[in-house]
Each structure stands twice: as structure tokens, then as C-alpha cells.
């Protein structure tokens, strides 16, 4: 049986000095263990929703909210961000602002959140060692975090969140500073974390990745959730273009190559689906019209 871990109930939010609302009547549920992706144009409210999930809204930002969000049974408005952080972690876009600015080395940086929780010093070492191996930052442990490259700091920022072992990890465009291979590696790690039971809420602009990884996709526009469902439901929706979102390239390719109705499922969303589908179709064609 799946249990609801995040419940967003008719939540609206307006930042203090803004005239427009940033979130409008957002309503969604996230089940334990689910991998949820949030997509939408710039300014559609994805980051605002992320900040609301971890309690920064309404506890840290100044503004006006309506509705209610509960995370693991706790109302985000009535517990502190720090307390909520034991359950839900956030990694946001600019990695340089995710350093504590109190650490002289990456190892100290990783230990920072643990220290705040009062984790004993000797437990820190094993946790740091484990996470450094996972995130491939072993060689950086003795370096000054302020002297790392953007991609390296991004790994450190992710590691600092994962080391706290949250039940839910919210990732707001957290691989923008990484090169394609680095970003791929991070996604593999996130996928493994999800398989090990951690619930993931991810904001990403890479639709191939979203289609590959997500169980559920939500599309935001002007602060509202305008579309939601499985990747297939969302990416096959005829309305998608209205929301400034395009489906994965594999979808366009397979849709254009395969005649509509030629097969029961005439499209693919992920690389592996596309390969399988195209191979199948090409193989059939060859059988039907053997070349002389």
C-alpha cells in the first residue's frame, strides 16, 4: 500500500512585493517512493513550489499564502524549516549559494548539516566517506569549497543534502552546472536513491530525462498546475504546446517516422523505447517487402 507523503491542498502564494500570484490553487499528492517531475516555462512557479514543499514558504519568505501543505503528516506552516529538513531536503540551482560559508574543506562542508543535528563526530567520518564515494568527490574532501568549479560545487551541494538522509529530496534544476556526462552520473545516482525508497521531486528542463525517470509529471503555467499524469499522459497531450513544453525528441522522431495507427503504440518517449520500436518496425518492413 502506498501512503501519501506530500499533500498540497489548494495552495496559493504571492510574494510580498509582487502583484501576481506565483502559485495558484495548486493541488497535488505525492506518494511515498514516487519520482515526480515538475516542468514548465521559466517563471511558471516551479521553484516557488519547491520552496513551499520544504517550508521556506511560508516560514522564510515574506508573502501571502492560502491553502495547506503537509509533509509526512506535518503542516509546513506550523513547524520550522529546520525541523522539516529532517524529512525533506532541497537542492536548488545556484550551487555556490548552497555552501555554508563556514567550512574550510569539503569534508567540513558535508559535516555542517550533521553538526547542526548533533550527530556525534565519529559518525560523521563514516557518513562523509560513504557519500564522497557515492558522489565521486573523494578527491575534493580536503579542498576549499570556495575554490571548486561549478560542477564540483554542485556535487558537493547534492552530497550535503543526501548525507542528511531525508525521506524526500526536492531537486530544483540541480545539474545546470554539470557537463552532460557529469549530469548523467548524477541522474543515475538520483535514480538509485529513488529505487532505494527515497521520494524524489525534480524540476528539470530535460524532457528525455523526465520521461525516462518520472512516475508522474506535473506541468506548471502561471503558477497553476495545468497538466498532470504519467509521462505518457502528459507528453501525448494535445495541449502540451500551449504550455510552452515540448515532448522528448524521441516522441517527435517516432511520431514522424511511424505512420499514425500503423501500430497500436506508434510513439516512444525514451531512448530504449524508441530503439525497440524502430527496430521492430524496420524489421517488419524488411520482412514484408524483401529486397531483391
Amino acid at each position: 500500500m502506498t501512503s501519501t507523503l506530500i499533500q498540497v491542498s489548494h495552495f496559493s502564494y504571492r510574494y510580498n512585493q509582487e502583484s501576481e500570484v506565483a502559485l495558484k490553487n495548486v493541488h497535488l499528492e505525492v506518494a511515498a517512493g514516487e519520482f515526480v517531475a515538475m516542468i514548465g516555462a521559466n517563471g511558471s512557479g516551479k521553484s516557488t513550489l519547491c520552496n513551499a514543499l520544504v517550508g521556506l514558504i511560508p516560514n522564510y519568505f515574506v508573502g501571502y499564502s492560502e491553502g495547506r501543505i503537509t509533509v509526512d503528516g506535518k503542516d509546513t506552516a506550523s513547524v520550522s524549516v529546520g525541523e522539516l529538513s529532517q524529512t525533506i531536503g532541497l537542492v536548488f540551482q545556484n550551487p555556490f549559494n548552497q555552501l555554508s560559508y563556514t567550512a574550510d574543506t569539503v569534508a567540513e562542508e558535508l559535516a555542517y548539516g550533521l553538526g547542526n543535528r548533533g550527530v556525534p563526530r565519529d559518525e560523521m567520518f563514516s557518513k562523509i566517506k560513504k557519500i564522497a564515494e557515492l558522489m565521486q568527490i573523494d578527491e575534493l574532501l580536503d579542498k576549499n569549497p570556495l575554490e571548486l568549479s561549478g560542477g564540483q560545487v554542485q556535487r558537493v551541494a547534492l552530497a550535503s543534502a543526501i548525507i542528511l538522509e531525508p525521506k524526500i529530496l526536492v531537486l530544483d534544476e540541480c545539474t545546470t552546472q554539470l557537463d552532460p556526462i557529469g549530469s548523467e552520473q548524477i541522474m543515475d545516482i538520483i535514480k538509485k536513491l529513488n529505487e532505494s525508497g527515497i521520494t524524489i521531486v525534480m524540476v528539470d528542463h530535460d524532457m528525455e530525462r523526465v520521461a525516462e525517470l518520472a512516475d508522474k509529471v506535473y506541468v506548471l503555467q502561471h503558477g497553476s498546475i495545468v497538466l498532470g499524469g504519467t509521462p505518457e499522459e502528459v507528453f501525448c497531450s494535445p495541449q502540451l504546446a500551449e504550455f510552452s513544453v515540448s515532448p522528448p525528441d524521441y516522441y517527435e522522431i517516432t511520431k514522424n517516422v511511424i505512420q499514425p495507427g500503423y501500430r497500436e503504440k506508434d510513439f516512444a518517449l525514451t531512448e530504449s523505447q524508441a530503439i525497440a520500436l524502430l527496430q521492430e518496425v524496420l524489421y517488419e518492413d524488411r520482412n514484408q517487402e524483401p529486397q531483391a
Partner: protein
Amino acid sequence: METIDNSIAVLVRNINPITKLLIVFCLGIGCLIYPLPFVGYGILCLLVILGILIGQGKQVLKLIAGFGIPVTLMLLFIQGLYSPKNITMIADFGFAQMGLEGTMYALKISSTLLIFLAAFYLMLQTTKNSETVAALTQSGLNTKIGYLILASLNVVPQMQRKVKVIQEAQESRGVEISGSFIQRAKAFLPLIGPVVLSSLTDAQERGMTLEIRGFGINGDKPTSYIKVETTSLDIVLRIIAICFLISSLIPRLL
């Protein structure tokens, strides 16, 4: 912090930051209390020697020459020539007479300043900021104040880095950033806006980071990755520092 790995440098680096702070304090205040300036200059020589031993000699001398000599000359000029305390005249320059009392006073103030400066510099070069703050919080400093100290210490390199990034961007767009002072000032002024504005966003996001890492959730009992030890060397050094401070009082009491 530069890392020079001779055994003395390692030894100095491993001294507890609290001990170092105490030494800086006792040396500076002791010299101020001690009636004659020569103790101060003697200690300054010792600090320079220590600097040389741990591979920081050049920097310490530069600091003394660059800051100490002008300040000493200025103090000598003002106090030596014009101090109302001057009774015993030791030299006559025609336009003014140089008095012994003012000269001594000027030398003492300058030696005290230089000792604070040199000792503090050596401390910074041999201590990680985070160790200093960890030591202070472990001995009871409020964690929020500790954070403030550390984060402020780290803001400067961060700002420098940002200015450099923007400068490089400007340079690649053809803005001249070297050349005469006016030219450089012209190139620098437009930087202030972006640097300040992005610093505001930075401040907001860094605040978010602290919140989501649980800053302060465990009250005043966070644990630290850094362990600051108090060795027997620390105890000995602390006793010596305090004895020095007390001994500086003796000539006054006699």
C-alpha cells in the same frame, strides 16, 4: 592559508586557536602596559624570527615595512614634536623641538600596533578560520555569533571572486580594465551595481541554505567535525603569555 610543512610550521599550526588569541592579546596589552617601548621591539623581533621560521618572513617584514614604518614616522612626528607631555627635549629641528616623553610614547604605541598586527597576521596564516570559531564555540561562544564571524570572514574572498568573474566578462566584451587609474575606475564603477544586486540574492539564498541544513535546530548544542585539542604545549604557552602580561605590571607597581 599557505601550507609550509617544516616542523615548526606544523607545530604552530597545531596550537589551539584560543591559545594563539591569548598570546596575541597578552603580547599586545603587555607591551602597552610596560613603561618602555624596547620590550615591544624585542618581541617584534621574535615575531619576525618566528615568521621566518615558518616560512612567512617576507610577508611579515613587508607588513612591518609597509604599515609600521609610515605609522611610526607619523606618530614620531606628531607626538615627538608636539605632545604636551614633552618636558625633556632631546633634539632641536629649528621649527620644533623633539621631546623625549612624546617620542617614547610614539614608539610604544607603534610597537604595540605592530605586535598586534604581526602576531595577528601570523595567527591567521597558521590557523583555519573554522578552527578558530570551532574552538570559540566549544568554549561557550554563541553559535549564531560564531556563524556571523565565520561567514563575514568568508565574504571577502567570495566578493573578490565575483568581481573577477564580472571583470573577465567585461574584458571579453572589450571593456578596458587595465591602464590608467581613471580608466580602471571607469571600468570598475559599473561593476558595483551587479555585485551588490547579486549579493542580495546571494544573501537570501544562503539564508535558505542555512535553514534547510538545520542551522540552530539542536539549540546551542551542535557537534563539530573539527576537533580542537588543548595539549600540554597549549597550557605551557598560556601560562607564559599570562605571566608576561602580569610581569609587565610589575614595573608599574614598584
